[in-house]
Structures are given as C-alpha cells and as structure tokens.
C-alpha cells in the first residue's frame, strides 16, 4: 500500500476580515502519496496556492485536519510549523526565490543550514542534490550567472537536499520556455518516482500533463474533479 505523505481532510480556510472576508477553501480533502506526482489545476483565485500553503504548513486551516507524514498540524505554533517544514517539506517557487548573493551550492546548502546541518556531510548532500538536477558543474555559479531553467533546478536541489517526503511546487514551469519546462518536470517526475516522494505541482501549464500520475481540479475552493494523468496510466 502506498504511504500517504500529506493529507488534508475537510479543510476550510477563510482569508481576510470583515467585508473583505473570503472563503478560499470550502471543505477540501486531498491525500498525496509517496512516489506520486500530482498536478493541482484551477483558475486564478480557485484556492490552489492556499491549499499548497496549508499542506506545506505555511498557513493553518480555519477548520479541518492537515497531516504531514502522519503528524497533525492542529494547534501548532509558528515555530512548530517551521519545524514540520524543515523536516518534511521541500518548496519550489514560481520565481525561484534564490539568494542572489550566494552561489548555487550555498543556495542549496541553506536548506541544510537552517536545520543545523553543518558537518562535511552537508557538502556531500549539496553536491549530490545539484548532481541530481544536472548542475554538478555549476556549484560555484551565482544565480545571475544561471539561466531561468538552471535557477529553477537549483531551487529543486534546495527542495530535495533535506530529503523531505513532500515536495510542493508552485507554478514551477510558468517562467520557463517549453524546453526548460519539460526538463524541470522530468526532474520532478524522476524525484517522485525514484525517491518515493510525494510531489504536488500547482500549475496552469497543460504542457506538463504527461508527467502527472494524477490531475486534481479545484474551483471556488472545492475539488471539482480528479483524473489519472498519462504517467499514472502507464
């Protein structure tokens, strides 16, 4: 049986106050399994990023239950949520969010540094993560010296270096051309398949459908459909 790495049960999230109050999620339930690459699709304002943030322990749900690697996030303080992120979640952002003053290697190592990993093995893990995304030769390059695709690969290396069970990616290919987008998705699919991690990708990009095991559709804060992706069928 496939292990569930992240799970939302009947999650409701209300954002804002007073007249500006918006119900971003209206009872969403979703389970992400290890080894699976799932796409979360929906129009703007449908609640995709809010759901990603809740599954990634960046936001707390207004009601409902969230479990990451079996651990419930109910009543957690911000520092406890940070601990869960550190231990179990890797993030990939649309605009990479690399540190412009650090090299590619340091940008990856920072994910270990925040966990207090500063032994020589941290260097080994960093090299390994960069090699996995095909950037073994660009360790000393600064983000400004890398192409968009390469920068996103550094971001992926940063997300996987701590060996998290859950990888959450927010529009990882939207800033990239088709070729680079395909390359990034190939890496993500490989990470999900070979390392038994659950990868959830928020996207609008239909070009990446072939990489998905599952495609989940969300609208107005509700899951409105789910289908197997081409990778799931094969």
């Amino acid at each position, binding site marked *: 049986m496939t292990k569930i790495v992240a799970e939302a049960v009947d999650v409701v999230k209300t954002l804002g106050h007073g007249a500006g109050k918006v119900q971003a999620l209206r009872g969403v339930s979703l389970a992400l399994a290890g080894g699976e690459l799932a796409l979360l699709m929906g129009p703007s304002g449908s609640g995709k990023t809010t759901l990603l*943030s809740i599954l990634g322990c960046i936001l707390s749900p207004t009601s409902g239950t969230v479990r990451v690697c079996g651990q419930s996030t109910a009543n957690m303080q911000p520092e406890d949520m*940070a*601990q869960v992120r550190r231990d179990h979640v890797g993030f990939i*952002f*649309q605009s990479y*969010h690399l540190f412009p003053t650090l090299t590619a290697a340091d940008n990856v190592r920072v*994910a270990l540094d925040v966990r207090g990993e500063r032994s020589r093995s941290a260097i080994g893990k960093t090299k390994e993560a960069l090699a996995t995304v095909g950037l073994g030769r660009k360790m000393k390059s600064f983000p400004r010296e890398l192409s968009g695709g390469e920068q996103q690969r550094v971001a992926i290396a940063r997300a996987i270096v701590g060996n998290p069970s859950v990888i959450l990616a927010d529009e990882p290919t939207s800033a990239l051309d088709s070729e680079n987008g395909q390359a990034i998705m190939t890496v993500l699919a490989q990470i999900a398949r070979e390392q038994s991690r659950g990868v959830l990708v928020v996207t609008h990009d239909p070009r990446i459908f072939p990489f998905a095991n599952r495609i989940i559709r969300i609208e107005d804060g509700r899951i409105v459909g789910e289908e197997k992706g081409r990778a799931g069928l094969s």
Partner: protein
Amino acid sequence: MPWQNVMSLIFKLSWRNLFHDRLRFVATVIGIVFSIVLVTVQMGLFLSFERMVTAMIDRASADLWIVPRDAKCFEDPSFVDERERFRALSINGVAEALPIVIGFAQWRLPSGGTTPVFIVSSDTRVGGLRPWNVVEGNLADLAVPGAVAIDQSYFDRLGTTGLGARAEIRDQKVEVMAVTKGIRAFTTTPYVFTSLDQARAFVGTPPNKTTYFLVRLVPGANVQSTRSQLRAVLSESEVLTPDEFRRRSRSFWLFGTGAGAALFAGALLGMIVGTVVVAQTLYSSTKDHLNEFATLRAIGSSAKYIHKVIIFQALLSAVIGFCIAAGIGLIIVDATAESALPVIMTPMMTLGLLLLTIIMCVMSATSAIVKVMRIDPAMVFTR
C-alpha cells in the same frame, strides 16, 4: 579552504547582505564612526577633566585633609584657623599637619596689564604639595624670597621667557626659579607655586589662617580611628580622606558646574545619532531582503536563525565602525596631548566603547527584527 565549507551560512548571508549595497554600508559605517568618535571625544574629555580637577589632591602626600567646613573643591579658597593645627597635632597618631595656602591673585605682565593666576603653596622645607615635573631650575630655590614656579605651557599667557624671568604679583616682585611641564589648570588660570609666606601675601591670607592642613600619620596609625579623633576635636573644619576630597572636587566641578553633564549630554547625543543611523540602515536593508527572509522562513528556518542573520549584520557594522572610530580617536588623542584639555583614551575606556558600540548596534537591530517577525512566509507565493 575546507573549513569555510562547513561554516554556517548565517555569517555569509549577513556579510553579503551588508555588502550587497556598498553605498548604504558606507553610510552605516560613517554613522557609527561619527557617533563613536563623538562619544570618544566627550568621554575622553570627561576623563581628562576628572583627572585634572583632582591633580593637586593626587600629588599631595596626605593621609587625611583638614579642610574648611563645606569646602566644595580644592580650589575653594576658604580659611581654617591655625589653632586647628595644634588641636590636630594633639591627637595620637598624627605625625604632621602641614599648612597649604591657595587662592587667586593677579600677575602683572611686562606689558603692564594683569592676568589672574592661582597660587598654590606649602612649606618648601617639608613639602606636602610641591610642583612636580620640574624641567628647569630647582625646587629648593622656592624658599628664596620672591621665588615662584610656573608651567612652561603658560609662558605666553604670563608674558615670561622662562627661568629667571621677573614679574609682579600683588605689587610684589617675583622671579621664576623653577619651570614645570604639564601642570595645567582646567580653569585656564595658570598655577603658580611658591612658598607659604609669600602665598599668604599674594592672596591676602591672614598669618593665623590657612586653607588646608595636610595630615600625615605616624607609621601604623589607623586612618579611620585617627580621623574620628580629629573630628571630635576640630570644631571649625572637616576631616576628609584623599578619596573623599577627590570625590567632592569631582562632584563640584563635573556636576555642580554642569560641565560633566554637558560632556555626558554630548556622549548621549552621539549614541542616539549612532543608534538611529544603524537602526535606519538595518531596517532598510532588512526591508530590501524581506523576500529572502520570507524564503528562509518558508523553507523552515526558525525565527532565531533569521534574528542571528540580522544581529550578525549589526555586529559586523559595529566592529568595522568601531575599528575606524578607535583609529580616529587615537589621532585625536595624539593631536590634543599638548593642549589645555587633552582627550584621554584608556584601555578600559576603549573596551567600554567597543561594548557600547556593540550594544548600540544590536539595539539598532530591534526594528529590523520586529519587521522580520511580521513576515508572512506565504508572501513567497505572491512574488
């Protein structure tokens, strides 16, 4: 180098954040340097002033001082009756009670005008409070009628050319028989050392009066017990230890006159300026790097990790700013060494300034930390 590879990235992030905008970094350092130099000068002057106001008490070889009741400082020219001396000598444990006469007088310049001087005298045979750092002439010559000792830094003020020069004090002829170096008065009125009898004549002290008695005890005598006995028999004067007399003089000149408060106010102003400059720069640097801090938070860093990055930035600014300020401080110390009120820097003061700089910079980091504490890591999805 291999050791660099395992060093925490906190230091690297701080360093790079700080140097990322060089112009802002230079502005920060200038702010710190300005602030610390200002504090150094004010505190250096304070120390210098503190030493100068007690120079005479420090140089007198006294176990106790008999001073006029409510004397505010060494330069307070009130009188003590000579009978107090005999009362003091009647106490077991008192070896000597040496009279000291001080007071203001007018020094007639060769050009015809006059300038005020401060007369200091003691018995030239037994000493008690004699000039020090004599560079020309002989102290024994002060016993010669009309002999005075002056400091070489006041030659111009007193219109003299040095040893052997003649002048008049209160219509009495005097001759410079000894020249000292570095005995400067903080009041800017030059000290003139002379014999006891001449001093009485110069400042108009009656023969049966004196300003102070400098008490020396017999070896082994208990200072506190002798002091209590002296207090019991001396009705018109007070008995102070040298430390008490120093404290009283300092208190009067530094705080009674407002001079110390002015120096402290200057130092405080420097600290406030420095704190505001550093706080403003750190805040604006943090604001510029907010996205990076939010990323750190999103990838699971603790709040403590981010605080460390900001505090390291503050510490780096502090150390760099302090080193430059200390260098400028040493130049000022050297440049003012021969002036009327030299700026003094002691190792303790330098250490204190380093701590002050660090505290100032870390306090300045507070506003930046408050800003970071309000970061919503979810902002990484919206930018």
